[in-house]
């Protein structure tokens, strides 16, 4: 019996190393379902510990909206903050936001008190590490920026990534990942102890729509086992920790423009996407990292 357990443990570890097919973690009979609607251009998906989903309506909305995990209802959560394109709750419990409309990076308490961290940047999307380092993409200048936990601003990478857009971090917080909106790669860097980035390379390659030269990579998030989920013109493309394209989750409709992705729900096992005027969600067999 001891031997059986040994074999079993070997099997489990080796099959994880080999990673799994997309078909193993989608749920039969659980397609995309509309979770919220009536918006113009939803974006900036993020979640809190309880599994509530927050998002913005970047082109027309009033502020930050919340999809309540308990009731399934959506309401305006914080008013008077129009034009946020990237959003995440940091280790201090505040929102951190790319306030694209105001060209600034801000922190916002749950009551709506705003602290301005940086101005004069055409910020698009961001991720905040557990240590409090904030990384954001500036798509038009082809730059990835870092605001350290001591609020120092550093241009962490410039000129290499074709229209950097979506951004996320590995579960060990040692790898930063950025999608190309104007290319076909998802880049990865090592995160040094001081938060700076080294060893950047086009670690992942997105599948291209037929006849196109760019995948239109957009918002990205991280799954608990270290897979990266990246929205693209074709749908949500999934990469395993080795950087291999493991699957593509098709969009809710061919016309959908999917720009942001996040896991939320009580067990963080509902995959949500921002697709224009609507938010869609579907239950999956894997969980989010955030």
């Amino acid at each position: 019996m001891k031997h059986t357990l040994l074999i079993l443990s070997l099997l489990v570890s080796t099959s994880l190393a080999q990673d799994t097919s997309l078909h193993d973690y989608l749920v039969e009979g659980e397609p995309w379902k509309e979770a919220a609607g009536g918006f113009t251009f939803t974006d900036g998906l993020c979640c809190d510990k309880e599994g509530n989903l927050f998002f913005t309506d970047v082109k027309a909305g009033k502020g930050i909206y919340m999809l309540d995990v308990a009731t399934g209802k959506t309401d305006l959560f914080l008013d008077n903050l129009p034009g946020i394109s990237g959003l995440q709750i940091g280790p201090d419990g505040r929102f951190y936001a790319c306030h694209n409309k105001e060209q600034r990076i801000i922190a916002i308490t749950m009551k709506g008190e705003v602290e301005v961290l940086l101005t004069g940047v055409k910020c698009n999307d961001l991720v905040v590490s557990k240590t409090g380092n904030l990384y954001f993409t500036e798509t038009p200048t082809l730059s990835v920026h870092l605001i350290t936990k001591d609020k120092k601003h550093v241009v962490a990478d410039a000129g290499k990534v074709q229209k950097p857009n979506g951004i996320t971090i590995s579960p060990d917080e040692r790898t930063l990942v950025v999608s190309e909106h104007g290319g076909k790669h998802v880049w990865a860097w090592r995160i040094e102890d001081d938060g700076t980035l080294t060893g950047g390379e086009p670690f992942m390659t997105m599948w291209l729509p037929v006849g196109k030269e760019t995948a239109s990579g957009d918002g990205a998030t991280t799954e608990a086992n270290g897979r990266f989920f990246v929205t693209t013109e074709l749908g949500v493309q999934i990469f395993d920790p080795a950087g291999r394209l493991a699957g593509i989750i098709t969009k809710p409709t061919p016309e959908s423009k999917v720009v942001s992705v996040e896991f939320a729900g009580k067990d963080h096992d509902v995959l949500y996407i921002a697709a224009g005027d609507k938010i869609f969600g579907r239950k999956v067999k894997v969980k989010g990292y955030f």
Partner: protein
Amino acid sequence: MLFRFLVRFRLMKFPARVSLSLFLALAPVTFAAPQDDQYVLGPDSQVQKGVPQGKVTQMPAWTNSKIYPGTTRDWWVYVPAQYKPEQPANVMVFCDGGGFVKADGQFRVPVVFDNLIAKGEMPVTIGLFINPGVFPTSNPKDKPRSNRSFEYDSLGDLHARFLIEEILPEVAKNHKLTDDPEGRGICGNSSGGICAFTVAWERPDAFRRVISHIGSFTNIRGGHVYPALVRKTDKKPLKVFLQDGKNDLDNQFGNWPLANQDMAAALKFAGYDYQFVLGEGTHNGKHGGALLPDTLRWLWKK
């Protein structure tokens, strides 16, 4: 017959019926399964009395790669006892080199080289055993991100350039290596197998002899296109050995036995000097390791 198959059937040994059924139900794609047990190492893979032994040296970790910035990797150099500094030696690169160089591994390349070189069955060849890069962090407890798939599964000339521009010149500082591409080979397993093919495909001016075991000619990063490319590209001066097993992987990237059969058919169609051995094994090096002495005899034959 070019290949003397080393087939020795062994009785399967399992402690209990329950574990056997569990093993058969779950194991086929993960590690050595019963169908792999028929492949065992022959005498050419064992240290033989009186055969001069070459020297394996672990090199300082390669940390200053310009092709793969930020990576570090372990690597080893094998120099045969018959090597003479005034005579340029052949070169053979092993992807995932740490496994191939191991004295008790599935391949034991230094032992096989010792035996074959001593018998004059392959030329005096320096072996370069190179691991894929990793991105270590300041914390030794962190598991470094592996760059293996990026380096091995990607198409293009990046890895060939890494070997030609970085590794070979470093080795040439202390060893006389041949410049003749006919004297340069490269070998790998799985993603290392497609990598070996890609290096020679991209740079036949530098590498012409290829060994791929359980090669990943599947769509991990686009490598499934090779059969089509081989058929439509003018023939390159390569000599290619492919091995796979009927029970190799079938997953989201593709089906390994089908992909290798497709590669072999394409090489045949385009008139390549190639060998394809399709055994019964799963995704590991046992069959390739058992064949290696014969493979090398064939590969290096003029």
